[in-house]
């Protein structure tokens, strides 16, 4: 295996990771499932590609602009749909993703179904690593602040969160906008790596793939999302020699993990926590043992009644 090949997969991991990080905030922390993130990715990809090919903007501002436009569209979508409860939001995002793709397919200015080609090749390992490092650190910092905790509270119990004085609509909006920006930047990186983009690249299958990665890695764990991205991006490549069977094995791998670890690989725990907090874990274990003993007693009491 040549380094050139591995580098290609790593870059692929990079732009997928950007989308997955954003989706991790929305799905893993805010508890909102989205099947339309390929739509945000498409917006970021098209905006940045148009900026570099048609307006001669350089790579970095084009990339950021792609993220901003995706974020603005995310805000609009949120305004319309975030009042929907549970699964309805999920359906709305599904519709959104498909709508974006169909609009692009029928819009001649952006090349219709042919898409845009001749995009400058700007995305390399370095730019991907920088983007992912910033993205990861920012997300980690966010979820460990009062804002992040408010977002987590929404996932746990929206009504209780609202009653605790948390503006749930605002925080869902923040989560959606940030995740759209991440997806937009991921799309921009993709466009400037592939050097061409087509609406076909942003089908619903892609959205589902990202959601699978987030769930595979474990909801509510940034490190889980990162590990999930690497495994599920490398796996199909490693299995290329198996031809059509590789997707079967990919599917099996996902199922096996979900059976063995129903809460995903990391199950809501960050990699760092495992090493950092042994004292806390010991305290928790001690307390849980006492609860178990208490339960035993009260069960006895109930039997007596």
């Amino acid at each position: 295996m040549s380094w050139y090949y591995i580098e290609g997969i790593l870059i692929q991991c990079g732009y997928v990771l950007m989308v997955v990080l954003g989706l991790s905030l929305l799905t893993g922390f805010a508890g909102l499932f989205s099947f339309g993130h390929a739509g945000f990715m498409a917006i970021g990809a098209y905006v940045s590609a148009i900026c570099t090919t048609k307006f001669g903007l350089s790579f970095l501002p084009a990339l950021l602009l792609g993220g901003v436009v995706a974020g603005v569209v995310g805000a609009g979508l949120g305004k319309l749909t975030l009042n929907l409860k549970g699964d309805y939001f999920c359906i709305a995002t599904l519709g959104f993703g498909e709508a974006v793709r169909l609009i692009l397919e029928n819009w001649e200015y952006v090349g219709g179904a042919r898409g845009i080609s001749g995009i400058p090749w700007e995305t390399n390992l370095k730019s991907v690593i920088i983007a992912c490092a910033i993205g990861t650190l920012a997300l980690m910092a966010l979820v460990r602040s009062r804002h992040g905790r408010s977002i987590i509270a929404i996932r746990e119990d929206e009504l209780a969160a609202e009653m605790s004085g948390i503006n749930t609509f605002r925080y869902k909006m923040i989560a959606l906008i940030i995740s759209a920006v991440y997806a937009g930047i991921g799309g921009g990186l993709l466009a400037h790596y592939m050097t061409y983009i087509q609406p076909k690249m942003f089908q619903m299958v892609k959205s589902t793939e990202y959601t699978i990665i987030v769930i595979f890695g474990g909801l509510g764990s940034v490190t889980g999302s990162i590990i999930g991205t690497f495994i599920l991006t490398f796996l199909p490549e490693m299995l290329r020699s198996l031809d059509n069977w590789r997707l079967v094995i990919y599917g099996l791998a996902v199922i096996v993990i979900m059976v063995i670890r129903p809460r995903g690989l990391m199950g809501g725990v960050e990699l760092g926590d495992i090493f950092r907090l042994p004292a806390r874990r010991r305290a928790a274990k001690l307390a849980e043992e006492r609860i178990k003993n208490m339960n035993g007693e009260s069960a006895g009491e109930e039997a007596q009644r």
Partner: protein
Amino acid sequence: MKSEGMEVLKLEHVTKQFGGLTAVDDVTFNIREGEIFGLIGPNGAGKTTIFNLINGVYALSAGKILFYGKTIGEGAEERKKVLKLKPFQIADMGISRTFQNIRLFRNLSVYDNVLIACHRSANYGLFESLLRLKGTRFARQEKVLRHKADDLLDLMRLVFYRDVISNNLPYGLQRKLEIARALALEPKLLLLDEPAAGMNPEETGSLMEMIRSIRDQFHLTVLIIEHHMDLIMGVCDRIHVLNFGKSLAEGTPAQVQSSPAVIEAYLGVQDGALYAVNEGEQ
């Protein structure tokens, strides 16, 4: 502290209709500062509906609710459009609550449950949380939040269970944690929805003590819904009795207990309600 004092919460002719069903019908009462006020009534009397009207989950059909003299909800009959603050705005003004069917952040630790609710004591912005350096507003406020959460756990005697996932706590402690979380908001008025449900007499006794002591310590006013008559009669300064959405009686525990209307509602032939209430009384 008991009888005089300003009005904390005032319900004026509060009415709530769900379609054709009138769940709360023309209910009026005042709660004064520092009081522990009980709201009782047979099942389906509209007690929890009143809670939901107070903290803005439902909009009023008619009537008015005032909190420290400020209107927080007004029904459609008084004005063209229903006035309804969002629940989080009402919580922000200083009304916090617990739930009849416990609603904790179940997959989070005891500590995190309280820490989340402490958010009002900090006001650093979204971008400030990205730069985690020593001495920034973020770092200073985050430290305050963590201290506060620890203090509250200490107060509610939950420190030992600090790192347990809240879902794994026994029932009584979950109720306590809900109260701790509600206190983290620094409320002026605390609404307790059946705090003693599922507790044994011993636990109920210590809960009564706790309600009194947190009232004094936090200078709170407390509104309790409860079926445990021991608790209600023992801890409340005044009680308001509801039956089928209507006000039945109001007064001190002694007055309420001797009121003929209340006795009739609880012991008279009121289908269905009888069993539930009797169970609660024992």
